[in-house]
C-alpha cells in the first residue's frame, strides 16, 4: 500500500520532468522549423529578385507555382470560388513592355471534385468543402523549363514533364494514393484521359502544392474549359532595376492582375516572420508557465514522498520501540540504531522508486498531460496556420507536441531522488529511535 502510494508520488515526480523535456523538444522543433522555413524563403526570394508575379486572384499571388518546398504564403480560403482568368494574349502584350525578359503563363484551377474536411477552431468545428486537387498548366517551353523553377524537383518516380509532352501529367504522391495509380497508369481528369509520367514527393510542401497535377498548359486549358485563358503570369525582368517600372505599367494596364514584386514578397515575408515570432513567443510563454506549474507540482510530489516516508518510519519506530530497546541493551550505539532506520527509510523509498518507474514508464504521457497545462503552440488560432508551417503532416498541433517518455537518465535521477528523500524523510524518525532510552523502551509493549 505504502509502496504503491510512494510509487505514485515518484511517478509524478519523474513524469513531470519527462513532460517538460518533451515540451521543450517540441518548442525547439518549432524553432528549427521556423528558422529553416525562413531561410528557405529568404533564399528563394533572393533568387527571384527579377520575378514579378501577376496573378488574377489576389489570394493566390505568392509562389503558387513554385514547387521547391515553399509553403504558400497566405491562408488559402475561398477555394475554387472567385477563380478569375485572363486571356493568354495579355502575356504577349506584357512581353513587349520595356525591360521584360520572359513571360511565363500558368493556368491554376481547382478540380471539380471536392472533399469535405472538418476543421476545429476555438469557436467550434466547421465543415469545409474544398477542391480535391489543383490542376496546374505549365507552358512546357524548354527555355522556360530550363531557366525557371516551375515544376516540382523532388521526384519519387517516373520523369518530370518536358517540352512536347501532351496528354501526360505529373502527380503528387498523395494523389496517387487517392486515384490508386502508379507511373504509367492512365487517369481521368475532368473526363479526359491522361498518363501519369511522374510522381513527386509532396510531403515537404504546403497543402495546396501537396495535391496538384501538373500538365501541359494547353491540356490544362482543354480539361478546365478555359481555352485561351491563363490565371497567372510570371514576368521576368532583364534586370532588377526594371522591376518597379514593369510592375507599374502592368498594374496600370490590367486592373484584373494583382502584381507582386520582390519587395512585396519581402514585405509579406516580414509579416509572416512577425506571425511566426508571435507563435514562438506564445509557445515560449506557455512553456515558462508549464515550467512554473511543474515546479510547484514537483515540490508537492517531493513533499508527499518525504512525508510518506516520515509517517511510515515514525509508525515503524513506534511499533518497534521494544526492538530498539533490545538493540541498545545488547550494545548497539545510538548511531547504529539511527543508521539502521535511515537505511530502512531509504530502502522503502527505493522500492517506491521502482514502483514509480514502473508506473511512470507506462503512464508518463498520461500523467504529464494530466498535470501540465497543454502547450498550445499556435495561440488562439490553432489550425489556421498549420499548413503554412513547412510541414505537411498537418503542422505541429498542441495536442501532439508533447509526448513524455522516460529515459535512463531520468530513471537514475529518480533513484537518486528516492535515496535522498528516503534519507530526508527518515531522518527525524531515526533520530527519535536513536534517542529512545533503553530502560523505557523495554517497558513498552
Amino acid at each position, binding site marked *: 500500500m505504502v509502496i504503491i502510494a510512494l510509487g505514485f508520488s515518484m511517478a509524478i515526480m519523474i513524469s513531470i520532468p519527462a513532460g517538460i523535456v518533451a515540451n521543450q523538444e517540441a518548442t525547439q522543433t518549432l524553432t528549427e522549423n521556423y528558422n529553416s522555413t525562413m531561410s528557405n524563403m529568404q533564399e528563394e526570394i533572393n533568387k527571384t529578385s527579377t520575378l514579378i508575379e501577376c496573378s488574377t486572384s489576389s489570394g493566390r499571388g505568392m509562389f503558387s507555382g513554385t514547387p521547391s518546398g515553399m509553403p504558400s504564403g497566405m491562408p488559402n480560403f475561398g477555394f475554387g470560388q472567385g477563380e478569375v482568368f485572363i486571356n493568354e494574349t495579355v502575356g504577349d502584350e506584357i512581353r513587349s513592355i520595356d525591360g521584360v525578359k520572359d513571360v511565363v503563363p500558368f493556368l491554376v484551377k481547382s478540380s471539380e471534385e471536392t472533399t469535405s474536411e472538418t476543421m476545429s477552431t476555438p469557436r467550434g468545428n466547421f465543415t469545409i468543402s474544398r477542391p480535391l486537387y489543383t490542376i496546374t498548366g505549365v507552358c512546357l517551353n524548354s527555355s522556360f523549363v530550363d531557366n525557371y523553377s516551375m515544376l516540382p524537383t523532388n521526384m519519387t518516380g517516373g520523369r518530370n514533364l518536358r517540352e512536347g509532352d501532351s496528354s501526360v501529367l505529373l502527380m503528387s504522391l498523395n494523389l496517387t494514393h487517392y486515384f490508386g495509380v502508379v507511373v504509367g497508369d492512365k487517369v481521368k481528369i475532368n473526363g479526359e484521359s491522361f498518363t501519369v509520367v511522374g510522381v513527386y514527393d509532396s510531403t515537404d510542401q504546403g497543402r495546396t502544392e501537396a495535391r496538384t497535377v501538373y500538365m501541359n498548359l494547353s491540356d490544362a486549358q482543354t480539361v478546365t474549359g478555359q481555352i485561351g485563358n491563363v490565371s497567372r503570369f510570371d514576368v521576368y525582368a532583364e534586370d532588377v532595376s526594371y522591376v518597379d517600372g514593369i510592375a507599374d505599367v502592368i498594374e496600370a494596364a490590367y486592373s484584373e492582375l494583382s502584381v507582386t514584386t520582390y519587395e512585396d514578397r519581402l514585405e509579406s515575408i516580414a509579416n509572416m516572420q512577425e506571425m511566426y515570432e508571435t507563435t514562438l513567443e506564445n509557445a515560449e510563454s506557455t512553456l515558462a508557465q508549464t515550467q512554473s506549474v511543474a515546479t510547484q507540482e514537483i515540490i508537492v510530489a517531493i513533499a508527499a514522498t518525504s512525508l510518506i516516508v516520515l509517517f511510515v518510519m515514525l509508525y515503524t519506530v513506534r511499533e518497534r520501540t521494544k*526492538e530498539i530497546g533490545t538493540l541498545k*541493551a*545488547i550494545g*548497539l*550505539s*545510538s548511531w547504529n540504531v539511527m543508521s539502521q532506520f535511515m537505511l530502512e527509510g531509504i530502502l522503502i523509498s527505493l522500492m517506491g522508486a521502482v514502483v514509480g518507474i514502473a508506473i511512470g514508464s507506462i503512464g508518463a504521457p498520461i500523467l504529464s498531460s494530466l498535470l501540465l497545462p497543454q502547450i498550445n503552440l499556435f495561440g488562439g488560432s490553432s489550425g489556421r496556420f498549420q499548413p503554412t508551417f513547412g510541414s505537411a503532416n498537418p503542422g505541429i498541433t498542441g495536442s501532439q507536441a508533447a509526448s513524455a517518455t522516460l529515459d535512463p537518465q531520468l530513471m537514475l535521477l529518480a533513484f537518486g531522488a528516492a535515496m535522498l528523500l528516503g534519507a530526508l524523510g527518515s531522518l527525524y524518525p531515526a533520530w527519535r529511535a536513536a534517542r529512545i*532510552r533503553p*530502560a523505557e523502551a523495554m517497558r513498552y509493549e
Partner: protein
Amino acid sequence: MSEFILKTEKLTKVYAMGKRKIPALSGVDLQVNKGEFVAIMGPSGSGKTTLLNVLGCLDTPTGGMMILNGIDVTKLPEKKLYRIRRDEIGFIFQTFNLLPYLNAVENVELPMECTKKSKGERRKRARELLEKVGLSGREEHRPQRLSAGEQQRVAIARALANDPAIVLADEPTGNLDTENKYEIVRLLGRLNIDQGTTIVMVTHDSQIASHTERILFLNDGKITKEKQGFHLVKKKLMCPYCGGKIQLSDARCPSCRKRL
C-alpha cells in the same frame, strides 16, 4: 575474598511522575564477585527490574555509586555507556527479545556487529555459542520456528557473544514451562561452572532462585535479606538434597530423583 565484578554503594533511583517522586531504589549496597551466580528475589514493585536496568546501564541511577569491572559507570554519558553494554554486559530478557526477521545465528551475531571482529570470526563465534547452548543444527532457524526454551537459549548465546564480564538475566524463566525453566537455569549454572561466567538473575520464582549460590531479597528498594542457594553444593558435583554424586548434565539426581 575474591575480586568483585560489580559493586554498588547507596544506589538510589527516583522516578519523577509529574511532581510526585517515586523512589524505586533507596540505597542498594551490593557486591557480586567474579564467578558468582546470584539471584535477586522480591515481590513485584520491590524494584527488581529497576535495579537490573541500572546494573545493566540501561538506566542511570539518581544517586550512589556503581563500579562495573573496575569502571565507575555512575557518571558515564550515553555516548560511552553503549560500549559498556556491548563489551561488559550480557542481557537476557524475560521475553527473549530476539529479532524476528533474523535467524538464530544472525541474532547471536548482532552484538558483535559493531566490534572489530571480521564477518567470518563473528559467524564462527556465533556457531560456537549456539553449540554451547545446545542448538547446533538449528542455526538457520528464525525465532518463530524455535520453541520458547530454544529461543531463550539463543538469547543466552547472544548475551555471551562479546564475552561479557557479567550476564544480567531479567526473569529469564518467566515465560517458560516447568521443564524449560529448569533447563534454562541448569544451562546458566553449567555456564557458571564451566566458563566461570558471572551471572545475576532476577526472579520471583523461589524454586528457580534456590538453584543459584546466593539469593538477595529486595524489599522496597533495599536489600533486606541474603540466603545461600544450592548452587555451591552443585559446584562440588553433589546433590543438594541427598548428597549423592551428580553430573552437571543431569536433569534429576540419580539417587533421590529430585529435580536439579
